């Protein structure tokens, strides 16, 4: 039996056990956030015994846009193949897919400094982004990726996850190769083009860990054998719990232009 299959079985057993036991939510009466929505967002574990990632979270903006490289991007730049560099030299800021409101995949989505919201149920976590709004469906039972018959390339890829201790390890494949790993403003070296291509061979492993009631850590390893010579590791992104109960709806409309959208998103 493959490791994936075993993971799926183990996950199914955990979920099944939770369902059979019919665990009741322990309501958290104190605190405004989470308690208001009856989710006891502050409790360390969900009713079915997983680390509880539920909540609205936000990290500081990261990148290399203001003279400092806070996202290990100089390293990433050095990992691109010569062929990828050649292609990137022929592109410019206008080719960045976010200019057309295409949502960036994580880890770029984690660099933006805008809120995300996570909601869990047995077997699944859902990640919602406020900037370039879109949802991610993340199975958490360790089940295999979508079978090849139904898998097709997308901007956000196909996720499946398992718990390693208190860390949710998300494996993401099936990207369409259109996304960028960072933005045109990110120029960590004198030779930077501000272009950060990916390919359809990209494979990302993310690690999400709730450190305490107010802190969620995120880290990702990006492999892309068609554009990178070696895997690239992001630094750990520290998300802090927000006091609001929901992310805002900030639709991105291409006809407004990217500058308008960024202004509406606010800082």
């Amino acid at each position: 039996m493959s490791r994936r299959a075993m993971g799926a079985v183990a996950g199914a057993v955990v979920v099944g056990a939770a369902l059979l036991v019919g665990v009741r939510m322990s309501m958290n009466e104190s605190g405004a956030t989470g308690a208001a929505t009856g989710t006891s967002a502050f409790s360390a574990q969900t009713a079915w015994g997983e680390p509880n990632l539920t909540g609205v979270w936000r990290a500081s903006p990261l990148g290399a846009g203001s003279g400092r490289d806070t996202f290990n991007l100089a390293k990433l730049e050095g990992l691109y193949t010569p062929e990828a560099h050649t292609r990137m030299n022929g592109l410019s800021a206008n080719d960045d897919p976010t200019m057309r409101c295409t949502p960036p995949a994580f880890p770029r989505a984690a660099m933006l400094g805008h809120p995300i919201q996570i909601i869990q149920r047995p077997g699944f976590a859902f990640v919602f982004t406020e900037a370039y709004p879109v949802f991610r469906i993340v199975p958490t039972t360790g089940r295999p990726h979508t079978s090849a018959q139904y898998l097709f390339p997308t901007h956000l890829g196909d996720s499946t996850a398992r718990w390693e201790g208190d860390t949710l390890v998300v494996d993401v494949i099936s990207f369409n190769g259109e996304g960028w790993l960072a933005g045109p403003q990110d120029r960590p070296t004198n030779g930077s083009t501000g272009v950060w291509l990916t390919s359809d061979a990209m494979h990302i492993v993310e690690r999400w860990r709730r450190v305490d009631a107010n802190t969620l850590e995120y880290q990702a390893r990006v492999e892309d054998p068609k554009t990178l010579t070696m895997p690239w590791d992001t630094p750990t992104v520290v998300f802090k719990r927000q006091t609001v109960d929901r992310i805002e709806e900030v639709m991105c409309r291409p006809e407004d232009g990217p500058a308008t959208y960024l202004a509406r998103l606010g800082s």
Partner: protein
Amino acid sequence: MSVRKLSVLAMLACSGLAVLALVVAIGASRASAQIRTYTPPKTAKPGADWTERIEEILPPGVESRAEATARVAAYKPDPVKYPVPRTPWDGKPDFSGVYWPDATITPPPVPLESLYRPEAREYRERGGAAAGLIDWRGIDTPNYHCWPPSPVNGSMGGTVQLVSAPGYLLLLNEGGSNFRIIPIVGENAPRPSASRNPSYQGSSIGHWEGDTLVVEVTNFNGKPWLGNAQPPNRLPQTTSDALRIVERWSRPDAQVFEHRVVIEDAKMLSAPWTGAADRRGIVPYDTVQESLCFLDPELDARHKEFAAQQAKKSGAVR
């Protein structure tokens, strides 16, 4: 018929044909350009979790939207044969599943149009708070700007995934990939904070009345339309910032869910309007797929041209 084929046809039927129908309603001659605004949904994967239980109304082989809609509309919910799924955390109905298509089971008592205030005419001519974006006589509708579907349908598009989670109902649309997060509060619990800013889909707060989830939606931005124009006679059914919607969500059995809205908008309507009772059938797929909406460049160019003409016209009047 293979599952894959059903899925492709179903998804194409539900979103592609929905858009096509709108286009036809607006002006058939422009259909070819407009339909490209939408990326057709691809495939869904077969059920592995909550959707395995379902096959009856929409089994593989039901391929046309018309047939599926008729089957869902004619269906008699049977909670004995298909017990209502319930969540392990609060015992309330579990809405989780992927659903398609949208069938009307009870029409609205009165047509929405009959309640529009005559004095709203000028506002409606402009396309409401979407003024400047919309030429309702033919070029476009909110759909073509990738805005969420009408709040009359709960902002649900063709294929929709519902997820019950502790304290939430989540709505995930396949077409356009937009979503709603609906917090569910207890009777005496503090209410979650509203969004800071008015929005297309508003701020939702749900509570249970028995097994019915009642959702109040406010804080709209005045841009959604309740219904498209029907040129040359009917203006777009615009909304204002006074829009307030009460939705009732129910799960009569494991095969279907039902949804109905009551809409108030004191600036647009002379009385609250009760919408159609709608029903959708669960399909044996696990999740909706990513299907982002992108603006059609050709339509965008035509729209900008129209906006420029309007600006010139209003400048000339001044």
